[in-house]
């Protein structure tokens, strides 16, 4: 079915606004239309859903939205993503082919920030191995080895649990000195990430959420950079995060 650029733009706009307004029904309807007119599903995800989440990130940073609103926006995004993702054509050189191991560290059951970071990776086309919450430290290392992952992401919401992070960093580094490791969570900042030898975190992440929301914009901006066979060849140790700071 042929569509005009105007029709496509209209669908993208409705996907985007549906996410921003946390209107799941409207996102589902627009996603079905996108599929009906055989619109490029990847474009619908990135320029519709992800573009909406990008605005949500701005609203969160400016204090217009708080966590409940962001969670409802994420639900709307997932409602669209679940429909569109099976239709994304995995053309070589178009999609990111990265693998991520992610989890909340042992002793911590807070997984909201972790789940949002996971969502961002999924939107960008990464394969995500989610270890869940209260994850024994060795499991991060084991899964990393088993999956030959590109990135290991750890989250901790409490000052009392973040202490497990350097232990994992050390063990992963012992296996592969060049492993890319990201840490996030309410008590984590750049200084701590640097001190522990992680490749990065949000600039001064007041919480993992802002960091996750920042990522979506970066993933979109770095479209060209992501159209590579193996993302890490192009992507400096903390290139993603440097871009987030810019």
């Amino acid at each position, binding site marked *: 079915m042929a569509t005009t650029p105007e029709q496509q733009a209209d669908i993208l706009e409705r996907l985007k606004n549906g996410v921003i307004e946390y209107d799941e029904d409207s996102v589902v309807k627009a996603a079905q239309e996108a599929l009906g007119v055989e619109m490029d599903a990847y474009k619908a995800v990135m320029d519709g859903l992800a573009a909406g989440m990008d605005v949500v990130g701005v609203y969160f940073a400016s204090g217009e939205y708080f966590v409940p609103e962001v969670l409802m926006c994420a639900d709307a995004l997932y409602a669209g993503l679940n429909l569109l993702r099976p239709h994304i054509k995995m053309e070589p050189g178009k999609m990111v082919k990265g693998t991520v191991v992610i989890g909340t560290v*042992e002793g911590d059951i807070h997984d*909201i920030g972790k789940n949002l970071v996971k969502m961002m990776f999924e939107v960008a086309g990464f394969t995500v191995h989610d270890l869940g919450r*209260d994850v024994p430290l060795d499991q991060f290392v084991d899964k990393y080895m088993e999956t030959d992952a590109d990135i290991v992401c750890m989250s901790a919401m409490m000052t009392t649990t*973040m202490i497990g992070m350097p232990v994992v960093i050390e063990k992963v580094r012992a296996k592969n000195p060049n492993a890319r490791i990201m840490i996030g969570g309410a008590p984590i900042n750049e200084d701590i990430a640097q*001190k522990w030898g992680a490749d990065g975190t949000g600039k001064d992440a007041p*919480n993992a959420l802002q960091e996750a929301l920042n990522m979506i914009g970066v993933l979109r901006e770095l479209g060209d950079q992501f159209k590579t066979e193996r993302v890490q060849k192009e992507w400096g140790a903390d290139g993603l995060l440097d871009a987030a700071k810019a």
Partner: protein
Amino acid sequence: MYNNSKDTIMKVLRGEAARGDPVPNFSGMGSITLHGIQQLGYRFNEIHVDARKMAAAAASTYRLFGFESAIVPFDMGVVAESLGATVKYYDKADLGQIIYPTMTRKVIDRAVVSAPEGLSEADAKTAVMKEVERQIEEYEFRMPPDVANTGRIPVVLEALRILKREVGDAVAIGSWTLGPFTELGQVMDLEILLKMSAKKPDVVKRHLSFMVDYLDKVLNLYIEAGADFVTVREMGATSSILSPRMFKSLVLPALQDVFGRVKGVPRVLHICGDTNPIVELMAQSGADALSVDQMNRLSETRAKLPNVVLLGNYKPFGAPFCEGTPEEVDAMIKASIEQGADGVWPGCDIWPVVPVENMQAMMDAMKKYGVRVES
């Protein structure tokens, strides 16, 4: 160390401190050190379940460093556990690897909800979330018949009695619970609770009302057992998570109920993260004193609330307290006092790995700068 720490603290908490009085250095939250626990020869997991060890660990920060309060419990699972959540205790051979007891299974937890068979992964996830939401809507909390003997509450009560007996003349004995909203997030799926706070506030209000009844009982038991003051930690309602509007409509009324019922000793309201937009609302909670963390611009808060007792707001983890030099710790404490804190007080639990010399530097700094300039 002052000779009359406890009197100083009680005067500050009652808003009776005068110019020239010493500024106290204390906390209403966990303030144990690994050093203290090692000196006692305990393992980290033991101090949460054994009243004598809990009391000894709590008192060790006073005995070793002259810290002016002794606080129990240390972990955030006591109340949730007594309402039916499962708490996991970690026993690590490596004493340096500290893991606090954690809720591994909430009363309403998506991990035990399964989706009908034959659904796609995405549809299964949606079905589970809908079911958890339904469970939260329909759930009715039941008051345990004997709160004082439920879960680890008797352990905390006994630890308070021991502390009262052994160090009660010298230091302020304190206890704490989470606030009603935060405690609800400990026993129910937090993500769905947050979304329901926006979509179905009446359901959340109904559960908050039970939580107020329950915390009223628990806190009054702590007071009867010997707590000189209590702290209510409502960090789940910080402006890093909830809008000030939602704080005002949903959380503040519940806090006002708690502080309206728990009486007889000074009560502190603690919220961490961004509290700058809500300090004035916090001051309407009925608490005797407010505690904020390092993200609060304390001098601005002092200007907004000239007559409110403010406790804060050094960062009790990372640098400089746990990873910096004693000189940096000295400067950090000086800044806390200069910004107008009525009591020098951490923004969270003290990270137990704090070096001995930094704890000492903090206590030394109090002798140098700890004199009240405002009346």
